[in-house]
């Protein structure tokens, strides 16, 4: 059973208003502020001289500690909606509540110091060093010098950059991926409960982007911020989001649900068009190897006596053994007959293990490894690379089938619930819909 990413792992979140820090609490002195809820109520943005509003009556509730991704076609108003949360764009009407506190009329400068903001191509100031960039918000909110210094180092560590090496560098001396990391570090420096990210990984190459996404997921596991993330890349949305908001024109919400629900049960043609082909394949990205059944495989150690290895090969249920090195890591696949062909020399026998997956890898990574392996299986390793089990094609196929079936049932249940609710609200029309 895949763990549902829809429920954030913060044990202290009974309800959006009670959970996490309110804006006022995120003051210096707190160790770390976890997320605060965000509520948008009937937000509308109308630019003077245009008849159609850019954002039209949008209401949205984001739970504390949750990662919500706004996804939609370019020019659909995702960024506009995001910028209304920290009031870089002032709403024409509607209310914004963060951590239960109405911030619609708060001083925007004070508001923004409590909301992290990371944008595409990092937005680092080129005339300041990495350290100065990160220290900006803590300095503005009046932290002491020593506290800022410690914080800068801590943030660089957090995003995986060596403080000693990077602190004094200028942004142009960094690669795109490194700049983006510093951008995230700057956004998080004053420990805001809410983090807004506007296509932060849009301008880096695919491999780096993948890394940065993994890092963000790891960070979020540690920090439990409320993250609102904008992207036009649906795959990125699935990977990062606890829940996804699919937006169409004028920021109209086409669907707001978990990635699983959107993949298996898109609300309408617009959403399914956006999900694109290969929903089953994308589903593989949502499940980790640790969530599926990992098989045991007969193993031997490199230092085991030859006789024992022969015995194991002859009597084992499979005709193949996994040989582990002295530190328990997968080393070689040994087939029956390999030893004979190598004339009894262990060093020459068998095929080296060239690909393993960790328990945190996605099923998609595992499938990739299984497909490229000539025998259709891949060894799973633990944190220090030690052997923990094996995943093969059969396991993968079974779990995918189970998963899809479960999603389908969930989705049907969900729809039934919606239909029931509708029926309750409009008793007259209810009967016809429930029958349909």
């Amino acid at each position, binding site marked *: 059973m895949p763990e549902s990413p829809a429920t954030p792992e913060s044990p202290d979140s009974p309800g959006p208003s009670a959970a996490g820090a309110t804006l006022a609490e995120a003051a210096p002195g707190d160790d770390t502020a976890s997320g605060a809820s965000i509520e948008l109520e009937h937000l509308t943005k109308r630019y003077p001289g245009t008849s159609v509003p850019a954002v039209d009556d949008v209401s949205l509730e984001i739970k504390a500690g949750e990662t919500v991704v706004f996804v939609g076609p370019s020019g659909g108003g995702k960024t506009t909606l995001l910028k209304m949360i920290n009031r870089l764009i002032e709403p024409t009407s509607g209310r914004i509540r963060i951590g239960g506190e109405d911030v619609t009329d708060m001083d925007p400068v004070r508001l*923004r110091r409590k909301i992290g903001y990371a*944008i595409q191509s990092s937005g680092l100031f080129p*005339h300041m060093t990495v350290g100065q960039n990160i220290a900006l918000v803590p300095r503005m909110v009046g932290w002491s010098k020593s506290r800022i210094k410690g914080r800068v180092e801590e943030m660089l560590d957090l995003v995986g950059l060596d403080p000693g090496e990077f602190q004094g560098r200028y942004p142009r001396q960094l690669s795109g991926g490194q700049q983006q990391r510093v951008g995230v570090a700057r956004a998080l420096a004053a420990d805001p409960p809410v983090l807004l990210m506007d296509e932060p990984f849009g301008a880096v190459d695919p491999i780096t982007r993948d890394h940065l996404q993994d890092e963000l997921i790891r960070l979020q596991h540690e920090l439990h911020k409320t993250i609102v993330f904008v992207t036009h890349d649906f795959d990125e949305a699935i990977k990062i989001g606890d829940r996804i908001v699919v937006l169409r024109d004028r920021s109209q919400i086409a669907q707001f649900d978990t990635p699983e629900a959107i993949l298996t049960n898109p609300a309408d043609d617009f959403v399914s068009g956006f999900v694109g082909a290969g929903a089953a394949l994308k589903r593989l990205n949502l499940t980790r190897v640790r969530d599926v059944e990992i098989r045991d495989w007969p193993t031997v150690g490199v230092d085991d006596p030859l006789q024992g290895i022969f015995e194991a090969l002859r009597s084992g249920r499979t005709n193949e053994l996994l040989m582990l090195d002295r530190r328990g890591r997968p080393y070689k696949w040994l087939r029956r007959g390999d030893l004979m062909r190598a004339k009894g020399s262990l060093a020459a026998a068998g095929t080296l293990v060239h690909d393993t997956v960790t328990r945190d890898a996605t099923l998609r990574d595992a499938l990739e490894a299984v497909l490229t392996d000539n025998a259709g299986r891949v060894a799973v390793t633990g944190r220090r690379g030690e052997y923990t089990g094996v995943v093969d094609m059969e396991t993968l196929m079974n779990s995918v089938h189970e998963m899809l079936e479960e999603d389908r049932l969930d989705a049907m249940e969900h729809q039934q619930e919606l239909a029931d609710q509708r029926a309750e609200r409009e008793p007259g029309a209810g009967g016809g819909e429930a029958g349909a």
Partner: protein
Amino acid sequence: MSAVNFWEYLGNRHQQLLADAYQHASAVFQCMVVATVIGVLIGVATYRSGWAGNLATLTTSSILTVPSLAMIGLLIPLVGLGVAPTVIALTLYGLLPIVRNSIVGLRGVDATLVDAAKGIGMSRWARLLRVELPLAWPPILTGIRVSTQMLMGIAAIAAFASGPGLGNEIFRGISSLGSANALNQVLAGTLAVIVLALLFDAAYVLIGRLTIPRGIRA
């Protein structure tokens, strides 16, 4: 006139020349400080609005089209002779390159950086002082440099209104053309202006190295 004569002339008159050069440099320097402050302020006040910025550039560039002799001549009835018309004229002439480069520089700051500055909670003033002006500083400094070069030449005209500086040397020479030292006087004054201009330029290179952050230095 022979070269030997010119060197002799310099030897005899070097004290007067140095005094004039000092006054020349001092007038230009002080007017540059005033022009820089006013010019950057005009730039800051107008760069965010299309028409105001254009108006500022247009006004300062039309000042520049007034011949300097005419400008000083027009100022004499208003403020009298001496230092006052010199300072006013030099400051006015110095404005254009600074105003124009301030506006161009401030408008040229990457919009995403301004957005980022806003987004992380910098106030209007903090944005201007810590992000926009530092990033616009290299073009502004170039404007200051161009202005200074220009003022070096224009300041020589100040002698016309009995102002200070090397112009006195040149004017004395011109008014006594045909006399023994006339050409030497003109030549010495002109060369001194050029040397001063080169010294100032070197100073600006140094200022640039010291004030432009390493992260945006070309």
